[in-house]
C-alpha cells in the first residue's frame, strides 16, 4: 500500500465542483479507488448519487474517461468496454493496458442492477465493480432498497404508529457475489482508508471480476451532521454492523476484529433513520438488531475458521 505522500503525487481523478452533499464520502472514495490503479482507468457510472452529482452536462468532475449508464446495466456496459478493448487489440487498433471500473449505488447493485452484475461475474470479465452502499435509493429521495437494514426508516419504509421502519433485513450481497466464485470480493469502509486502498489495489490486480462493497454513511438519508461521516463509518465497523472482510478465491478473511465489540445502539442512536427506536420503549427491537449483528459476526468468524482449516 502506498503512503499518503505517494498518493499526493497522483493526479486528482475526481475534482471539486461536483454537487454531492457536503460531507458525502462518495467523491473521496472514488478518488481513492482510482488512485489505487496501476494502469489508466475507464469508468462506467450507473445512475445514482455519484453519477448525478459529478457529471452534469457540460461539466464533469472526472479526470478519466467515463461513460454514463442507466440505473440497471452498468455491469453489462463495463463488460462491453472490456470486450471492446480486447477486440480492438486483436485488430491492432489499440495497445493500452487499462483497468475498467464500474460504480453503482446499492439500488444499482443489490436490486435493479443484480442480473447485469450476475451475468458479468459469471462471464468472468476482468473488471472491478464498486458498490457505493448508502443503504437506500438516495438521489431520488431516500426510498428503501434491498440494502436498507432492518428497522431503518426511509420514505417508503416509514416509522410511525403502525410501522417501525423497514420490516425486512438487508440482502447479503457479499454472499451472493462470492457465490459466483469470482477471484476477489471485499467489504470496506471509508474510516478504514488503508484497508480500503489495499483492497482496491488488490481488486485491480486480479485476473477476472472483482467486487468492492463500500459503506457510504449518507448524512442526508441516515440523518446526521456532515462532519460525523467518518465517525459513523468507524462506529459501523467497531460495532460489527459492517465487518471489514474479503473473500479471495473462496477463502474468507476478516481484516479487522474489534478488540471490544461496541454495542450496536451506539451506532444506531446517532442517526435519525433509527430515531423511532429510541422514542418510547423499543428495547426488544434494539435487542433484535443486536442479535442479528452478533449472529452475522459469528457466522463470519466460523466461515473464516473453515477457510483456514
Amino acid at each position, binding site marked *: 500500500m502506498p503512503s499518503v505522500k505517494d498518493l499526493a503525487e497522483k493526479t486528482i481523478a475526481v475534482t471539486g465542483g461536483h454537487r*454531492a452533499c457536503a460531507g458525502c464520502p462518495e467523491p473521496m472514495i472514488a478518488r481513492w479507488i482510482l488512485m489505487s490503479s496501476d494502469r489508466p482507468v475507464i469508468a462506467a457510472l450507473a445512475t445514482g448519487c455519484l453519477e448525478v452529482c459529478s457529471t452534469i452536462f457540460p461539466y*464533469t468532475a472526472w479526470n478519466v474517461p467515463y461513460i454514463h449508464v442507466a440505473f440497471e446495466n452498468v455491469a453489462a456496459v463495463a463488460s462491453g468496454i472490456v470486450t471492446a478493448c480486447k477486440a480492438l487489440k486483436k485488430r491492432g487498433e489499440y495497445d493500452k493496458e487499462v483497468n475498467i471500473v464500474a460504480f453503482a449505488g446499492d439500488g444499482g447493485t443489490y436490486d435493479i442492477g443484480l442480473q447485469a452484475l450476475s451475468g458479468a461475474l459469471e462471464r468472468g470479465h476482468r473488471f472491478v465493480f464498486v458498490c457505493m452502499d448508502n443503504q437506500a435509493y438516495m438521489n431520488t429521495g431516500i426510498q428503501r432498497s434491498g440494502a436498507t437494514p432492518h428497522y431503518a426508516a426511509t420514505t417508503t419504509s416509514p416509522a410511525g404508529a403502525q410501522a417501525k421502519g423497514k420490516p425486512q433485513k438487508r440482502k447479503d450481497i457479499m454472499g451472493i457475489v462470492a457465490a459466483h466464485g469470482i477471484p476477489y470480493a471485499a467489504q470496506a469502509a471509508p474510516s478504514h482508508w488503508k484497508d480500503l486502498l489495499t483492497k482496491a489495489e488488490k481488486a485491480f490486480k486480479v485476473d477476472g471480476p472483482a467486487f468492492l462493497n463500500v459503506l457510504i454513511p449518507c448524512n442526508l438519508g441516515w440523518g446526521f451532521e456532515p462532519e460525523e461521516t467518518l465517525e459513523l463509518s468507524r462506529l459501523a465497523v467497531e460495532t460489527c454492523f459492517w465487518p471489514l472482510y474479503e473473500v479471495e478465491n473462496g477463502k474468507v478473511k476478516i481484516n479487522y476484529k474489534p478488540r471490544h465489540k461496541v454495542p450496536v445502539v451506539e451506532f444506531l442512536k446517532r442517526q435519525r433513520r433509527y430515531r423511532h427506536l429510541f422514542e418510547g420503549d423499543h428495547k426488544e427491537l434494539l435487542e433484535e438488531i443486536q442479535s442479528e449483528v452478533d449472529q452475522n459476526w459469528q457466522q463470519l468468524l466460523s466461515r473464516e475458521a473453515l477457510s483456514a482449516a
Partner: protein
Amino acid sequence: MIIEIRWHARAGQGAKTGANILAQAAIRQGKYAQSFPEFGPERRGAPVQAFNRISDEPFTIHSGVTEPDIVIVLDPKLVGNVPITDGLKAGGWIFLNAPIGAREAQERFGWQAFRVVTCDASGLSKRTLKRDIPNVPILGALAARAGVVALESLQTESISRLAKGRGTDDPVVKANLEALALGYEETDFADVHTQSLPSSGTKPPLPAWYELPVAGVIDRGGTAQVYQTGGWRLKRPELDLNVCVHCLMCWLVCPDSAILLSGARIIGIDYRHCKGCGLCETQCPPRARAIKMVEEEALQPAEKTP
C-alpha cells in the same frame, strides 16, 4: 408590464413557499401570476432559486427569470457567493434579509445602481414564529416598499393557507400575521445612487445546439471545476500553516478536493469549492489542530484562492 422576481435562498428557508404565497396573493387581487422553484441535483446546503412573474395582463412566457426587476435574498451568507445582481435591471430592487441598514448594504456590495431594502426578516421571524423562516417577513417588506401586492392580499392568503381546520385566532396564524406586519413596518430603504451597473463578470456565451458534441460527449476532464460550490458553506475551515504538520490527512478526506497541495505540503484551502463539511477538522491530528471550523461570516465577498 410583467414584474419578474428572482429569489435566492438555501433549501429549507422557504423561497419556494414564499414565491407561491406571493403569486397566490397577486391572483387574489385579480392579477396574473406564476411561481416556480429551480430544481437541480444540488444537495443539502446548496443555494436554490425560485421565480415569480406578476402582471395585470395574461402572459405566456414560462422560462426561468434571467432579467429580474426584483431580487430577494433570504440568506445573507449567499451575497458574494452567488450572482445576486446578474441581469438585474438598473434601478431594480434588492430585498436583503440582514440586520443592517440599506445604505450600508449598498456600499458594502456595490449596489449603488439599485434600490436596496434591508429587513431583519430572520430576527423578526424568530421573535414571532420562534423559528428562522425569513420568507414571511420579507413578503411584508416587499409589499411595503415595492408594492407588488397589497399587504391585505398577503394576509388573506396566509390565513386561507394556515387557518384550514383552525380559527383565525389560532396562535400559528396569529404569529404569521404578526411576522408579516412586522416585515411591512421594519424595513430600511436606500435609493439609487448611480446609474452605472456593477460589472457582472463575463460569462462565456452558451454554445448553440449544433455546436454541441455528438451524444453529449464532454471532451475534457475536470470541467466541473468552473462550477463553484463555495456558496454552500455555512462554516469555513481556517487553516493555520504555522502549526500544520503536513500529514495530508485533510487532503486525503476532503470530498471536494479543496485542500491545496504543493508537492507533499499543504498550502491552503480552495474556498471556491469547499462546502464546509468539517471533515478536514475531524482528521487533523490532535498534536497539530491546524484546522478550525468557524461560522461563515455573513455578508463577506467570497474569497478567491491564492
